[in-house]
Every structure is written in structure tokens, then in C-alpha cells.
């Protein structure tokens, strides 16, 4: 390797700066494509550790695009979906987001599963003026005009489920979750809610994603004697907690409510005796008994190999179907795929009704007001027992107002 001289360094930086600027400029100019198609991209992990989430999401985006095309397309054109596979790898997220924005000049990116990957692509797509639609339940607080969110937030899921627990089980709450930003922040939201409603927040304990041994924690929970347990565990290794909890005979002794249970199809991996009675709040369950959802589940299963082969749908998987359709409706309303016009159409407080119910964009946060359903595991599947209609995504209302400050592009966290 040659040494880096000052002159060489300056030359290289100037060249790359020029290249980046040029690339940025090109991103702004939306060159007319082959006239008969609109290109959009999906960025969901179809391999690696997160493929359990990403594969159904890709399928749902595909189904939505096929349906839109079969119904005559969008603005008289067919949609072409490019399904990138970032392989559960953050570098590939960055690379594909750039490729989608600069090379393919897509109209929208439906993308990111974990909050970590969303925070990788959000600034890239923001700089390149390409819309990002995020449809996964998450820790809330993103305040970015370019990032439309149809996934539910802690206010929409965490608060109802904790409220249910405090009403039915008691006021002492013990929280456990996975050790990264989302469960960390969701825990803080939980603490805020519990303390503001006269409850007692006993503990917030977080576990690295590869922990499988929960013996000491289970004894600790027994020692703390909470009225109920609030969990936000994530991933395959953490399912061990539910197994060990049931094996210690705790399932019938201390009730459990959760933010994430079911999102990784935990109730399908465990035996009914290991998880019956756990309560979760989610914007979508495959078991929802509405005609719109039954028809959607049937279309999905028919398209992907029948009820036995098609993956089970939860609020993560179905999210990309909702996101893709909702975006298409916004394009129809705007009459163009031009980003600013579509965002403006959405920010007018646009609504769309899908398999999970009605969603309405809140212009202040670009999140969705939506229905949330409370369900309990019974015999290994979800039994929806209560629907809370049209919950607003007001998590960070005090700080986020995109109608006044459209240039905001940050993520707010709870203030305790």
C-alpha cells in the first residue's frame, strides 16, 4: 500500500465529494422510466437470522403489488417490485438502499425490519429524497417527514396491554426484555405509563439476545412478587424464557402480558401448556374475524401454496401488505408518484381500510391512527377478545410536529 500524502488525500476527497454530490443531484432528478412501469423496492431480510420475519413480509409486498396490477395498475402503469434481500446484514441494508435510490430511482422503499436497520437506511433515503415506508411495530418516536410509519407504537400497543394488566391483575409490574434499543425504550414507555397511573414499576431487566438460561431471573421475579409480568423478549433464544417459566409452574401463578409475544410466532413454537393465557396487544392477528381479514388470509394462502405451506401471518408479516397498498392509494390520490405530492396527499390526513382495520395518517408524526386488538393465547392460537378503535400515535406529540417543522428528522425517546 502506498502512503497517503496530503496532495493525494485532497485529490481523492475532492473527487469523492464531487461524485457524492453528483450522485445526490441525480437522485433528485426523477428520470422518466420505461413509460409503462413504476418501480418500487422492498428491503426485508429473506435470509439470515431475521428471515422468519422478512420472508412473509416480502410475500405480502409481492401479493399487494400483484393485486394492484391485476386491478389495472397505478396511474395506468404496472408496478415492478424489486425485492432486495439484505441478509440480516446492516452493510447490505446501506448498499441496497443506495442502489434503490440512486440506480433504480424507485418511487418508494418498503423496508427495514429491526429498528437498527431502519436507522441505517432512513438517513440514506432521506438524503436521496426517496420515500421510506416502515410497517413494523416498533419503539416509536421517529419524527421524519420522509419516513411514513404504519407500524404501531408503544402508546398503541404497550399502554393498552399494561392498562389491561393493571385493571385485571394488579398494580405491581415487572418488565423483562431483550437488550437493544427497542425493548430498552419500550420499557421506559412502560415505566412512564405505570408510574403515571399509580402503579409500581418493580424492575426492568434486559437480556442479550443469545441468553438461554433464565433460572436466576425466574427466582428473582418470584422474590419480587409482581402482580403481572410485562415482556418484550425477542428472537429464538429468548423463547427459552417462556418454556422455563412454564416448567417452573409459574404460568398459572403470575400472569403475563407482552409487547412482542407472538410477533416471532412464539405461540406456534411452544406447546399450548407453555403459553396459554398470555395476553398481547397487536394491530393485526391472523385470527381476526373480520370479513376483510378472512378474505386477505385466503388470498395470501392461495397465492403461497395453501394453508399448510403459507407462513403464519402476524402483525409484522402483514405490515408490508398494508404499507404497499396504502402507498398506492396515496399515489392515486396525488395523481403522481412524485415524492412531495404523495407525502402531501398522505399528510392531508388520508385514510385507508385494510385487513387490520382503518388506518389514518397523523400529519404531525406521519404515523397511523389505527385499531389495536387485545388477544389471549388459547390452545396455542390467539383469541381476540377486545378491539380498541382508532388509537392515535401520540407518543411524542409534545416534541414532534411535522406540520410546523417539516425538516425534523430524528427519533425521540421517552422523558422520565
Amino acid at each position, binding site marked *: 500500500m502506498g502512503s497517503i500524502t496530503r496532495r493525494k488525500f485532497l485529490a481523492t476527497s475532492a473527487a469523492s465529494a464531487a461524485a457524492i454530490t453528483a450522485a445526490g443531484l441525480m437522485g433528485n432528478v426523477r428520470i422518466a422510466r420505461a413509460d409503462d412501469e413504476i418501480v418500487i423496492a422492498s428491503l426485508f431480510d429473506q435470509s439470515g*437470522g431475521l*428471515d*422468519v420475519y422478512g420472508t412473509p413480509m416480502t410475500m405480502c409486498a409481492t401479493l399487494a403489488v400483484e393485486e394492484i396490477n391485476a386491478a389495472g395498475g397505478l396511474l395506468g402503469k404496472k408496478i415492478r417490485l424489486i425485492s432486495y434481500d439484505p441478509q440480516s446484514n446492516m452493510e447490505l441494508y446501506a448498499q441496497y438502499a443506495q442502489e434503490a435510490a440512486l440506480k433504480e430511482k424507485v418511487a418508494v422503499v418498503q423496508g427495514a425490519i429491526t429498528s437498527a436497520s431502519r436507522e441505517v437506511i432512513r438517513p440514506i433515503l432521506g438524503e436521496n429524497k426517496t420515500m421510506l415506508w416502515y410497517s413494523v411495530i416498533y419503539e416509536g418516536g421517529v419524527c421524519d417527514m420522509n419516513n411514513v410509519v404504519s407500524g404501531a407504537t408503544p402508546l398503541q400497543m404497550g399502554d393498552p396491554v399494561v392498562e389491561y394488566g393493571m385493571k385485571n391483575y394488579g398494580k405491581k409490574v415487572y418488565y423483562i426484555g431483550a*437488550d437493544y434499543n427497542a425493548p430498552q425504550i419500550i420499557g421506559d414507555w412502560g415505566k412512564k405509563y405505570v408510574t403515571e397511573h399509580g402503579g409500581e414499576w418493580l424492575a426492568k*431487566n*434486559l*437480556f*442479550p439476545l*443469545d*441468553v*438461554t*438460561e433464565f*433460572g*436466576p*431471573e*425466574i*427466582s*428473582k421475579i*418470584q*422474590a419480587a412478587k409482581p402482580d403481572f409480568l410485562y415482556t418484550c423478549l425477542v428472537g*429464538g*433464544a429468548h*423463547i*427459552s424464557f417462556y*418454556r*422455563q417459566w*412454564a*416448567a*417452573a*409452574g*409459574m404460568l398459572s*401463578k403470575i400472569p403475563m402480558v407482552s409487547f412482542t409475544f407472538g410477533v*416471532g*410466532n*412464539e405461540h406456534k*413454537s*411452544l*406447546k399450548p*401448556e*407453555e403459553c396459554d393465557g398470555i395476553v398481547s396487544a397487536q394491530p393485526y392477528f391472523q385470527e381476526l374475524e373480520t370479513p376483510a381479514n378472512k378474505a386477505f388470509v385466503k388470498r395470501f394462502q392461495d397465492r403461497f401454496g395453501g394453508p399448510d405451506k403459507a407462513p403464519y401471518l402476524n402483525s409484522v408479516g402483514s405490515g408490508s401488505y398494508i404499507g404497499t397498498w396504502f402507498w398506492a392509494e396515496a399515489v392515486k390520490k396525488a395523481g403522481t408518484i412524485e415524492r412531495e405530492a404523495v407525502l402531501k396527499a398522505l399528510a392531508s390526513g388520508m385514510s385507508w381500510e385494510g385487513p387490520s382495520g382503518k388506518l389514518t395518517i397523523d400529519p404531525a408524526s406521519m404515523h397511523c391512527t389505527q385499531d389495536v386488538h387485545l388477544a389471549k393465547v388459547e390452545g396455542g392460537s390467539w383469541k381476540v377478545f377486545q378491539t380498541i378503535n382508532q388509537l392515535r400515535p401520540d407518543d411524542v406529540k409534545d416534541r414532534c410536529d411535522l406540520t410546523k417543522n417539516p425538516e425534523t428528522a430524528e427519533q425521540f425517546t421517552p422523558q422520565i
Partner: protein
Amino acid sequence: MDLVGIQIIQVLSGIATLALMGAGLAVIFGMMRVINFAHGEFMMLGGYVVIVCTEQFGINLWVAMLIIAPILVGLIGLVFERILIRFLYGRMIDTLIATWGLSLFLIGVITWIFGNVTRGVQTPLGSYSFGDYSEKTYTLVMIAFTVVIYLAIFVVLRRTKLGLIARGTMQNPSQASCLGVSPPRVYMVTFAIGAALTGLAGAILAPLNTVIPTIGVSYVAQAFITVITGGAAAFTGTVLASGVFGAVRQIISFQWTPILGQVFLLITAVILLRIFPTGITGRYFRRST
């Protein structure tokens, strides 16, 4: 009082878990000096054997766990010893690369067959009460299994001719070969036994955890830290290191958080290896097995 009792059981369970994870590696790495990066995947295979046997074929859980899993994983180990490992004895870094590849291969094959889906068997035997606390009965069974497995290992290695031949061959293959022993065959059998012990450990831990193709990653680092800290006398060392690490981790986890438990386990490992660069048994119990 109840609290102390339950904590003692937790500590014993933590020690037993580490000792179980380390047993097979103590053979393959401790005795044979093969850096087996596929150790976690052999454990994962043990878990899958249990799941397939009980779910697909309706075989009794204990039979699947204690008999079928070690035999099958042992045979798989034997096959890979023949086609991969046997060319690499004495080349430690090469074994690392080769078994790393083997680990990725096994993860791939299992994902291909079973999908990247979480599976598991329910923990048998229910729970028992201990004052205010309740705990799973299976923990006690797992501790008992670990004790029996280690007793068996010590008896075989110290009291039988097979054990003598194995130990002799590992120490000095050429001398052993002069005495009419075939070192390649001894290596082959020893590796298979190491794999069988690893599969057994994976099977015993399966009802406590979940089984996914990538679960090995959760096991392999802990197993290596334990066996390396144990030092030259692989089995005595693994037991001693498990004792220290298991106690440190469980007590810290209980008093503070599981993250600090992991942190203190690693700090303890660093301190131990600083004091005993060749492992605990590099200084104490040098003449043990």
C-alpha cells in the same frame, strides 16, 4: 432461607450447564487439541435428534435423549472425522478453519431441512415448590445427569484399558504405535466419543431451551472459555472452571442483572488465565485427568 436454598440450586444448575457444554469439548479440544468450532452445532444436532424422535416417531423422550442422540451425533462425528478432521491432527489453526466451515455447513443443512424455525420439546416432570419459590424439577435431573456423565468419564479414563490407551495415544502417538496401538483408530474413536458427549449435552439441554439451527452460537463460546480455563487436565479442569464460572455468573445474575453476570464471567476468565496462563490444572491437580 428459601432464598438461599433456591440460589444454591441455581448455582448448581449453572455449574452443571457449563460442565455439560464442556464435556465433549474437553475430549475434542482438551485431549485431542482440535479446535472444534462446530461444537455448538453438534449440540444443536443433539437437540434436533430429540425433536425428530419425539415428534415424528413418537419415541420416548428419555430414550431419544440419553441413547439415540449420543449415538447418532457420535456417528455423524465419526463421518466428519474420516472425511475432514483426520487430515488435520497437530495443525490447530487448520482445524479451526475447517471446523468453522463445518459449523456453517451444518447450520445450512439443518436450516434447509427444518427451516429457520424455532422448535423445542416441552420441559418434562413439572415443578416443585421450595418455600415461596417454585422451580422446575428437570433442573435437578440435569444436575444428576451431569454428575453421572463425569463419573463415567473419570472411571473410563482412569480405570479401564480403553482409557489408558486413549490417554497414552494423546500424549505420545509414536510410542503408543510402537506398543501395537493404531493411533489413527484411537483418534477416530475418541473424536466420535467426544461428538457423542456433545450431542448428549445438546439433547439434555434441549427441553430447557429452544432449538433453532443457529442455537450453537449461544453455546460455543461458553464451552471454549470453560475448557481453556480448565487447562491441561481437561476433565478435572472443566469441572473446576465450570464451578467457578457457574457460581460467579448465577450469583451476579441474581444479585444484579444477567448482563453483569456475563460480564463477570468473562472478567473472571481473564483473571484466571492471567494467574494460570496454562489453565487452572496447569498449576493444581496436574496429575489428574
